[in-house]
């Protein structure tokens, strides 16, 4: 596993971190609330491919190999180049969104990673959605952690990345973006409760955003 780790450090140290810190620029709020070690789950809202890169670049290169985004298998494993890159350089945990396989098999990769003490990045909204709009979180994250009461969920709200690189655009335009880390969520007893926790936390964290003014 040494080779992918070096690739990941090089990729983030030489390309992603400079882009995120200089071309984009972050307003990070409550950085100290991010889980410093696993097993842990970060639940973030999703507007742009940059979301994952921004979240990962908040971590020092020494532990960046422990930070693993959970990503859609149908998209990221769709061709061989992208699959190799996603699995080896980014270190994604592929998730089959089609829902044909049963639930236990579905989260196999995630559970394995949690057992190794990794920090998972999960986007409960599923796909990226409209730029700068909060989508409704889905229930999957509840089932992922149902058996794991030792793993806490840290909600993170990001804002502004949908302007920098929205879905379907290739041109990156520099904008600062807000990254606001919330308190760990309480343990939910059913999926609807967890969805409710997530939605209300995102709404609450929105007040700390500096980039929330829009003309539309």
């Amino acid at each position: 596993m040494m080779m992918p780790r070096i690739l990941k450090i090089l990729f983030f140290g030489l390309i992603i971190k400079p882009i995120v810190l200089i071309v984009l620029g972050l307003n990070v709020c409550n950085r100290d609330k991010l889980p410093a070690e696993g097993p842990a789950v970060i639940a973030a809202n999703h507007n742009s491919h940059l979301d994952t890169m921004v979240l990962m670049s908040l971590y020092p290169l020494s532990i960046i190999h422990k930070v693993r985004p959970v990503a859609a298998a149908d998209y990221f494993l769709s061709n061989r180049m992208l699959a190799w890159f996603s699995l080896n350089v980014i270190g994604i945990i592929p998730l089959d969104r089609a829902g044909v396989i049963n639930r236990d098999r579905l989260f196999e990769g995630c559970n394995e990673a949690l057992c190794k003490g990794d920090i998972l990045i999960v986007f409960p909204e599923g796909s990226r959605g409209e730029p700068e709009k909060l989508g409704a979180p889905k229930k999957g994250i509840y089932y992922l952690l149902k058996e794991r009461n030792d793993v806490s969920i840290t909600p993170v709200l990001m804002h502004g990345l949908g302007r920098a690189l929205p879905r379907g655009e290739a041109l990156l335009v520099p904008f600062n973006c807000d990254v606001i880390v919330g308190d760990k969520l309480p343990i939910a007893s059913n999926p609807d409760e967890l969805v409710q926790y997530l939605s209300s936390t995102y709404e609450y964290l929105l007040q700390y955003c500096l980039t929330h003014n829009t003309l539309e």
Partner: protein
Amino acid sequence: MLDIPQNSLYAMIAVVCILFAATTTRIILRAKNPEKDYTELRQRIQSWWWMVGLLFLVLILSKNATIAFFGFLSFLALKEFLSIVPTRQADRRVVFWVYLSIPIQYYWVVSGWYGMFIIFIPVYIFLFIPMRMVLIGETKGFIKAAGILHWSVMLTVFSLSHIAYLLTLPEKNMQAGGVGLILYLLFMTQFNDVCQYIWGKMLGKHKIIPKVSPNKTWEGFLGGLLTVTLGSGFLAPFLTPLSLAEGFGAGLIIGISGFIGDVVISSVKRDLQIKDSGNLIPGHGGILDRVDSLIYTSPLFFHYLYYLHY
């Protein structure tokens, strides 16, 4: 390596001494009142060390490094401004062009093409932005969006690039050089902020514009203005081509316009209902929070100097 002229070197040493004094004072304060929290003061002073350190490094490196440094500062300020104000999703490509104005504007600075430097943004970019927006074709919110975009380049690129152009002007005070002009402008502008703050803390009673900045008082403003006018006068022959009397004039301009720059950016933030424009500089806020006064003092000081001596 740029040879720093003698007077400018002395000024740089003096600034470093002031920073040492600030750090020492903070350490003494902490030792005297261990129960009080001085985190913000510590962050502020630490950030000052970084900002002064970076500026002095580029000043020592070369003229072009310094111009590039201010270009980068314009980039950070513009990015911060565009991030906090409302923009339309449709204008992403226009915003990209707005960023491209930075290397072009600073190229005029490097090449010393004064005519182009002075009209490029107020004329060409001013006319270009709406044209590029028309090509996209979204008319809803067109007026506001065009206004915001042009205002953003004027504030963060046009205004701030005047600092860099000071280095391109022919040297008239051989003991200080272009570096002396930059040190004079930056030091006096920041000194003005500090003086107005201190005078306001000591004597402040009558509020100037309570709706925008509740902490700004007439006592702070006038006390600061007096201190800065005197200081600017005495320092002017040392660091600039200005005489003592002309230096007093420069001090008045810096004192008054520095205050205005500060409250203009405050009004922007108040309108957007945010306290700071970012959190890039610990203890200070964002880049705009730091360069707010400079946005006004730079072009005004530049043209005062240009009118009198060039």
